[in-house]
C-alpha cells in the first residue's frame, strides 16, 4: 500500500491534470462542489459530501445533440463532435460511486446504449475517498453501501492524519498511481481511521413489495401535502436521470438539445392535448418514490437511492425518504 502526504496531493492532481480534466470537490460560496482542478481552488476533501452530485460530468444539465439547417425542402444535419476528453474524478464517496453503477444500468444496458453518456463514462477514471465521518443526513449503509470502500472505482483513497492511503483497484487505477511516481511513499503500517457509521438508519427490506400494493393508497395524499413541488430533490439526486429533448430554433438553423427534467414538474407529463395523468403533487411525489423504491428495483434489481442524503439536506419542507420508507412499511393496506 502507498500513501501521499496531504500537502503533495495538489501536486498529484496537477500531474494528472496534464493528461486529463481533473474534477475534485472544492469550495464554492460556502459549499462544496466538484470543480475542474486548475491548481488554485480550495480543496474540500475533509468535509461532508458535495452539495451537487457529480452526475452532471456524465450527464450534463444541458447537452447539444445535433445541429440542423433547413433550406427550402432540404435539411442538413450536423453531428456534434464526440466527447474525446479524458476525465479523472477525485474524491468520489461510496454513495456517489454506487450512483454511477445505477446510471450505467439506465444508459448502457437492456439493449439501449446512450452514446453521449457512454463516451463520457468510458473516458473517466474514478478515485474514491472513504468517509470517516457521516453527516446527520447520511444513510448509505441502508442500501448495503460501505462508506469505507466504494464499488466500481479505479483507486480507493483513505484519509490518514497527514495524508491519504492510495490503493489501486483496477489496472487503470494502477496507471494513475504510476503517474504519481516519487510523490508516493510506502505506507508501512499506517492504519486509516474506520469507516463512518451513519446514525440515520432505515430498513428497506420489503418496501418494494409493499409499494406494489400501494398505488392508490391515501397515504400519498397525506405525505404530499407539504411538498412544494419544486425539483430540488431530483436535481440534487445522484440517481435521478430524467431528461427532456427540445430544439432551439433560430430561423433556418437550430439545434436539438437535451436537458435535465424533473418528475416533480407539471409539464413533465403534460400531453399535447393538455391532459395530465399526474395532475397534482400527490401523483408526482408518489412517482418519485415509486421510481426509486419500486420501478427501478423491478427493472434492475437495485434500489435507485444511495442514501447520500442530499434530498433530505436541501428539501425546503423536510420530505424525508427514510421516513417515507418507514411509514410505507407501517401503513395498513
Amino acid at each position, binding site marked *: 500500500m502507498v500513501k501521499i502526504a496531504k500537502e503533495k496531493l495538489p501536486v498529484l492532481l496537477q500531474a494528472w491534470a496534464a493528461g486529463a480534466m481533473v474534477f475534485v470537490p472544492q469550495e*464554492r*460560496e*460556502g*459549499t462544496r462542489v466538484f470543480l475542474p482542478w486548475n491548481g488554485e481552488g480550495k480543496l474540500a476533501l475533509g468535509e461532508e459530501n458535495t*452539495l*451537487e452530485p457529480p452526475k452532471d460530468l456524465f450527464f450534463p*444539465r*444541458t447537452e447539444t445533440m445535433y445541429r440542423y439547417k433547413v433550406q427550402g425542402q432540404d435539411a442538413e444535419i450536423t453531428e456534434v463532435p464526440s466527447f474525446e476528453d479524458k476525465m479523472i474524478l477525485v474524491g468520489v464517496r461510496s454513495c456517489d460511486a454506487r450512483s454511477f453503477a445505477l446510471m450505467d444500468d439506465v444508459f448502457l444496458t437492456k439493449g439501449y446504449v446512450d452514446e453521449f453518456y457512454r463516451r463520457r463514462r468510458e473516458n473517466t477514471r474514478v478515485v474514491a475517498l472513504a468517509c470517516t465521518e457521516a453527516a*446527520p443526513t447520511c444513510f448509505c449503509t441502508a442500501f448495503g453501501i460501505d462508506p469505507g470502500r466504494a464499488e466500481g472505482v479505479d483507486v480507493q483513497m483513505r484519509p490518514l492524519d497527514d495524508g491519504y492511503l492510495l490503493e489501486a483497484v483496477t489496472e487503470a487505477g494502477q496507471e494513475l498511481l504510476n503517474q504519481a511516481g516519487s510523490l508516493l511513499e510506502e505506507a508501512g503500517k499506517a492504519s486509516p481511521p474506520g469507516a463512518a457509521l451513519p446514525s*440515520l438508519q432505515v430498513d428497506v427490506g420489503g418496501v418494494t413489495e409493499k409499494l406494489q400494493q400501494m398505488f392508490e393508497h391515501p397515504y400519498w395524499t*397525506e405525505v404530499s*401535502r*407539504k411538498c*412544494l*413541488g*419544486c*425539483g*430540488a430533490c*431530483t*436535481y*440534487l439526486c445522484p440517481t435521478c436521470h430524467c431528461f*427532456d429533448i*427540445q430544439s*432551439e430554433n433560430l430561423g433556418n438553423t437550430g439545434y436539438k*438539445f437535451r*436537458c*435535465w*427534467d*424533473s418528475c416533480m*414538474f*407539471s*409539464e413533465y407529463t403534460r400531453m399535447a392535448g393538455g391532459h395530465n395523468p399526474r395532475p397534482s403533487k400527490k401523483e408526482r411525489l408518489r412517482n418519485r418514490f415509486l421510481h426509486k423504491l419500486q420501478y427501478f428495483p423491478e427493472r434492475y434489481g437495485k434500489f435507485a437511492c444511495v442514501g447520500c442524503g442530499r434530498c*433530505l439536506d*436541501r428539501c*425546503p*419542507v*423536510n420530505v*424525508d425518504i*427514510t*421516513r417515507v420508507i418507514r411509514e410505507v412499511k407501517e401503513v395498513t393496506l
Partner: protein
Amino acid sequence: MSRIQERMRARARELLAQGTVQMVIGWEKGTFWYLSPPVFITDAGECDRLVWDEFCANNLAKYLLDYKHTEDKIALFVKGCDARGVVRLLQDNQIEREKVYLIGIKCPGMKDGRLADALGEERRHEVPLVAKCRFCTHPEPVIFDELLGEDEGAAARDAAAAAEGRFAEVEKVEAMSPDERYTFWTSAYDRCLRCYACRNVCPACNCRECIFDRSQSGWCGKQMNRGENMFFAITRAMHVAGRCIECGECERVCPEGIPIMTLNKKIIKDLNELFGEYEAGIDLEDLPPLGRYKLDDPDEFH
C-alpha cells in the same frame, strides 16, 4: 415558547372538534432537532403533533392555494411573514377571507437550521437568526382572527436595526461597477438549478399557470444556461415587483444559496424611491404601487 405550543394544540383541537375548520396548518418536529416543517392536521386527536419552537421558519401562506377549490375552511398559524403572505393572496383575489381562520403568533425571529446543524444541539441557544428574520419589519401578524401569546414574543431584533439593515445588501451591489455587478449576478445565477423552489414557496407567485411551466411557448427555454437562468431570475423578480412581502422564503429555500432577496429588495428600494414608501402585504386596502394608477405617478424609468 412551550406555553404558546400548548395553547396552539388546544386551540387546534377545539377548532377541529367543533367543526369550525376542517384542517389546521402549522409546524411539527421534523427529522432533526433543527427542523420544524409544515404539518396538516385534519383529526383533532393528532393536534399534539403541532410544535412551536425557534425553527418554525416556513411560511405557510402559500399552502392555502392547494385548497382554494375545496369547500374546506382552514385554520392557519401565522407569524408576521405568514400573515403578510395571506394579505398577498387576499389582495390578489386568490382566496376568500371567510374560508381561512388565522391564529396569530408574535414571532421572536426564527433560527437558522443549517447553522444549527453545524453548531450542535448542546449549543442550541447560540444558533443565530435565519437571514430572512434579521431584517424583519413586522414580526407580529398584521391580520388574524385571534392572537396567541399576547404577553410573549417581543421581537428578538430591534426595529431600528431592521429598518437600517434592510437594504444593506442592495447598497453593496449598487456600489459595484457595472462589470462587478454583472459578475456578481451571473456567478450567482450560473448556480441556479431551475428547481423553482423559490417560485413554489412564494405567496406572490400565485399565477394559475407559470410561464416557466410552459417551455414550449417559445418565451422561455428549458436549457440550463446563463441566458435562460437570468431570464427566469429577472422575469420572476419583475413579476413580484411591488407585491413581494419580504418573507425571504425564496432565498431560504434556494438549495444553491442564491441571494434572491437582494434582487427583490433592489426593486422594493427603487419602487420606494419612485412611488413613495410602500410595504406589501400589510394593509388589505393599500394596493401595490404597480397595481393601481394615480394621475401623479412618475413616468420616468430607472
